[in-house]
C-alpha cells in the first residue's frame, strides 16, 4: 500500500491540520502513528479511512481492501446489546457464535453479552468496539487510540492479542497512539506526527515480537522520539 | 364581543315598561345574524343602509352582525345568549331546536321561496318524474327545506325516502357530487342552483306546490319577555326595510348584485322567486305544521312541537 497525501481543513480560521504530508504505509505490517494530542492523528486516520475529504494531494489505495476501523470513542449502537454490537458488521449467515464468544472472551467481556452499552464502564465499551472491528475481520485495520481507556494489564493482554492476530493473519494495521511505549512495542514502522507533518520515521522491522521495551536499542529509540517531540513543542 | 346577557332584577325590567324615555334592557347590544344566501335581499339592504343600527341607536344599543349561516348554528347561538335575533332562519331549524327544548320564538316571516329550492339531475339524465327517482342516489342537506322538498316530491309518486338512497351533504358538496357524477340528483338552492340551471343541468322539480320554504325571523322567549320594546322596534325596522325595497326596486337589485357578486341578470332572474313579506299568514302556519308533521314522520324529531305556541303574538 502506497500513498501520498496532503490536506488541510477549516476550523474557524483556516487551520492546517495536515500540511503537505507524504507517507507510505507498507502492506502487511503494523504502522504506528505517534503524536501529541491535537496534532492531527485522528484526522490522518480518517482521511485514510475515507471518512474525510482532503483538499489537495493524492491518496493511492490498493483496491479490494476490506477495511475496519476502531474509533477514538466507542461508538456503540445504544439500542443493541454487546453481543449484537459485536456482530453488527457481519451478515447474518456469517455469524459464527463460537468465534464471537472467543472474541468476547479475549476482550474480557464474558458475562456482559446481553448488557447494553450504557451499562458498561468506559473501558468495557472501548473493548466492545474493538471486538466489533475484529469480528468484522478486515484486511486493513485502522485503530485510533484503542487502548487508551484500558488499564495496564488488559492493555498488555490486548497488545499481545493484536500481535497474535497480526502474525497469524498477516493483516495490515495502522495504529494511532500517544503512548511512546505502545508505539515501540507494536510498530514495525513509527511515524512521529507534528503540526501536520511527519517529523520523523523509524523503522523497527528488525526487532522481533515480543519486544522488550527496556532493551537498550529501544530505549535509544525512545529517547530519540522524546527529543523530537519536545524540541518541536518548544519551537 | 362574547358578553353574556346581563341578568337584572325584576324591578329594572318593569322599569322598562314604565318609563319610555330611559328604558333599561337585559342586553347592551343587539346581536343579529347576517345570512345573505340563498338570496336574502332584506338582510343585504338592511346592512347596506344600516336600518337596524339606526333603529337601535335610539336606545343606545349597538348592532352586531354574525355570519352564522346554518340553522343549527343559529339556534345554538341564540340559546347561548350571544344573539338576540335570528334574521333569516329556516322554519325547520326552529322546529328542530324547539322540539329539543330550546327557547325559541318566531316573530315574523322572512321569506317564502319555493321556486328557489330545486332538485337537479344530470345534464342528460332520463329522470322525468318522481317515479323515476326510485333507487337513485340523491345528495342534499338533511333536515332542511330541501330535504322536505325531496320527501314531498317522492310522495307524489307514492314513494318514501327508503325507496331512494339519500346522502346528506352541504349544498356546495352536493353540487360537486352531481357534477362529478357520483350521485344522480342533487338538492340545490340559491346561486348554486342558478349556476347549475344556466349550465344546462336539468331541473327535475322546484319546490313549488311541494313546500312553502318558509324562512322566519326568531328570537328567544326570555328575551321578548324582558325586552318587548326591542322586539317591537325590530319589527318596525323590518317594515322600514320592506318599504325601502318597494320604493327603490332598481337600487335594491344593484346593491344585492354588488354584495353577492352575482351578475345583475342573475339577481333579476332570481329575485321574483322570493316573497319577502313579513307578515305571518295562515298559510305560513299551515306550512309550518306540515313541516313539523314531516319531521315527526321521518323521525327527525321525537317531541311534537306546537306551532301556534312557537309564534309570538305581538301587538
Amino acid at each position, binding site marked *: 500500500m502506497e500513498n501520498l497525501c496532503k490536506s488541510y481543513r477549516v476550523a474557524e480560521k483556516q487551520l492546517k491540520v495536515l500540511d503537505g504530508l507524504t507517507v507510505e504505509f507498507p502492506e502487511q505490517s503494523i504502522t504506528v502513528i505517534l503524536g501529541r494530542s491535537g496534532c492531527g492523528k485522528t484526522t490522518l486516520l480518517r482521511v485514510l479511512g475515507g471518512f474525510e475529504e482532503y483538499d489537495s494531494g493524492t491518496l493511492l489505495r490498493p483496491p479490494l481492501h476490506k477495511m475496519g*476501523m476502531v474509533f477514538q*470513542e466507542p461508538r456503540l*449502537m445504544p*439500542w443493541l446489546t454487546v453481543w449484537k454490537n459485536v456482530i453488527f458488521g457481519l451478515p447474518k449467515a456469517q455469524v459464527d457464535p463460537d468465534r464471537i464468544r472467543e472474541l468476547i472472551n479475549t476482550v474480557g467481556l464474558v458475562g456482559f453479552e446481553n448488557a447494553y452499552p450504557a451499562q458498561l464502564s468506559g473501558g468495557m465499551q472501548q473493548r466492545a468496539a474493538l471486538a466489533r472491528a475484529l469480528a468484522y475481520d478486515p484486511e486493513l485495520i485502522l485503530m485510533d487510540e484503542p487502548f487508551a481507556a484500558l488499564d495496564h494489564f488488559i492493555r498488555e493482554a490486548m497488545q499481545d492479542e493484536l500481535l497474535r492476530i497480526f502474525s497469524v493473519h498477516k493483516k495490515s494495521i495502522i495504529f494511532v497512539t500517544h503512548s511512546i511505549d505502545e508505539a515501540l512495542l507494536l510498530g514495525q514502522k513509527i511515524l512521529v506526527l507534528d503540526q501536520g507533518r511527519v517529523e520523523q520515521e523509524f523503522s523497527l522491522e528488525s526487532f522481533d515480537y515480543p519486544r522488550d521495551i527496556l532493551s537498550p536499542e529501544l530505549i535509544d529509540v525512545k529517547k530519540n522520539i522524546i527529543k523530537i517531540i519536545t524540541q518541536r513543542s518548544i519551537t | 364581543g362574547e358578553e353574556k346577557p346581563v341578568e337584572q332584577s325584576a324591578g329594572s325590567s318593569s322599569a322598562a315598561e314604565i318609563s319610555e324615555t330611559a328604558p333599561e334592557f337585559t342586553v347592551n347590544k343587539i346581536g343579529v345574524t347576517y345570512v345573505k344566501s340563498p338570496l336574502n335581499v332584506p338582510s343585504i339592504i338592511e346592512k347596506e343602509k344600516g336600518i337596524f343600527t339606526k333603529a337601535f341607536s335610539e336606545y343606545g344599543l349597538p348592532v352586531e352582525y354574525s355570519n352564522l349561516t346554518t340553522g343549527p348554528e343559529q339556534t345554538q347561538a341564540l340559546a347561548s345568549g350571544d344573539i338576540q335575533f335570528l334574521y333569516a332562519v329556516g322554519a325547520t331549524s326552529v322546529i328542530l331546536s324547539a322540539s*329539543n327544548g330550546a327557547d325559541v320564538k318566531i316573530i315574523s316571516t322572512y321569506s317564502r321561496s319555493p321556486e328557489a329550492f330545486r332538485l337537479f339531475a344530470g345534464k342528460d339524465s332520463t329522470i322525468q318524474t318522481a317515479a323515476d327517482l326510485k333507487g337513485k342516489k340523491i345528495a342534499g342537506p338533511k333536515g332542511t327545506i330541501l330535504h322536505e322538498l325531496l320527501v314531498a316530491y317522492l310522495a307524489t309518486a307514492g314513494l318514501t325516502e327508503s325507496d331512494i338512497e339519500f346522502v346528506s351533504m352541504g349544498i356546495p358538496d352536493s353540487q360537486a357530487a352531481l357534477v*362529478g357524477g357520483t350521485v344522480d340528483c342533487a338538492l340545490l338552492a340559491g346561486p348554486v342552483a342558478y349556476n347549475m340551471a344556466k349550465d344546462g343541468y336539468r331541473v327535475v322539480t322546484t319546490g313549488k306546490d311541494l313546500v312553502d320554504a318558509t324562512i322566519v325571523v326568531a328570537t328567544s322567549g326570555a328575551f321578548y319577555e324582558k325586552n318587548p320594546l326591542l322586539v317591537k322596534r325590530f319589527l318596525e325596522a323590518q317594515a322600514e326595510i320592506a318599504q325601502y325595497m318597494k320604493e327603490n326596486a332598481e337600487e335594491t337589485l344593484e346593491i344585492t348584485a354588488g354584495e353577492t357578486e352575482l351578475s345583475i341578470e342573475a339577481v333579476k332572474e332570481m329575485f321574483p322567486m322570493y316573497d319577502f313579506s313579513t307578515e305571518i299568514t295562515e298559510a305560513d302556519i299551515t306550512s309550518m305544521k306540515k313541516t313539523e308533521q314531516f319531521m315527526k314522520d321521518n323521525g327527525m324529531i321525537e317531541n311534537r312541537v306546537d306551532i301556534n305556541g312557537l309564534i309570538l303574538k305581538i301587538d
Partner: protein
Amino acid sequence: MKNFWKAALPIIVIFLLWQVVSDMQIWSSYVLPGPGQVFRSFWAMVKSGVLLLHILVSLWRVLTGFLIAFVLAFLLGILAGVRPASAPYYRHIVEFMRNVPPLSLIALLILWFGIGETSKVIIIVLASFFPMFLNIKKGLASCDIKLLEVGHSLGFNKIQKFCRIMLPHALPDILVGMRVGLGYSWRAIIGAEMIAASRGLGYLILDAQQMSRSDKVIVGIFVIGIVGYLCDCLFSLAIRKALHGGVDNSWS
C-alpha cells in the same frame, strides 16, 4: 392504585361540575344536556347496536387513512432524510399543502374522487400525513454522524446504513410522529364524514348537530375521544412489546 385515584380525581370533578351545572338549569337541556340524559342516549345506542356500527366504520376509515399516510410519510421522509438533494422537487408543494385546510378541499375531492370511501380516506390522509412526515424527516436527518461512520467502517451500503443505523436511531422521533398522526386521523373523522357518510362517529355527530340533538353530540364526542385514546394505548403497547426496552420510551 394511587395513580388510579390521581387520574380519576379530575375526571370525577368534571363530571360533578357538569351535573351541578345542568341541575342548576342555567341552560336548557337542549343547550347542555345533563350526564344522565347523555348516558341514557348512549345506552340506547349501545343496546340497538348502532353505536358499535358507527365505531367500527370509523375505525376502519381511520386505520386505512392512517396506514396510507404513514406509508407515504415514511417513503417521502426517507427520501427527504436520506437524500436531502431531492428536496427542491417536492418541498414547496409539500409545504404548501401542509398549510391548506383539508376542509377547503372537500368539494374538489368530491368532484374528482366521488363520494365513496376514497374521498373520506384522503381527508384522513391529509390530516395525519404531515406530523409523521416532519418527524420522520427530522429523526432521519438528525442521525448521529458518528454512528453512521461506524457503518461506513463496516462496509455497509446505503440500504444497510439506513436500516441498521438511521432507522433505529430515528425510532423515537418516528413514534412521536405516528402518535401525533394517529390523533389527527381521529380528529379528521368529522371532516371525512362530512362527505356523504351514512355511518360512522363523525356522521353521528354531524347528524345530531343538524338534528339539534346535543345529547347525541356529546355521546359522539366522548366515544371518539375514548376510542381514539384506546387506539393510542394499544399502539403504545404494541410498540413497547416490539422494542422490549431497547429504546428508552421517551415517546410514551
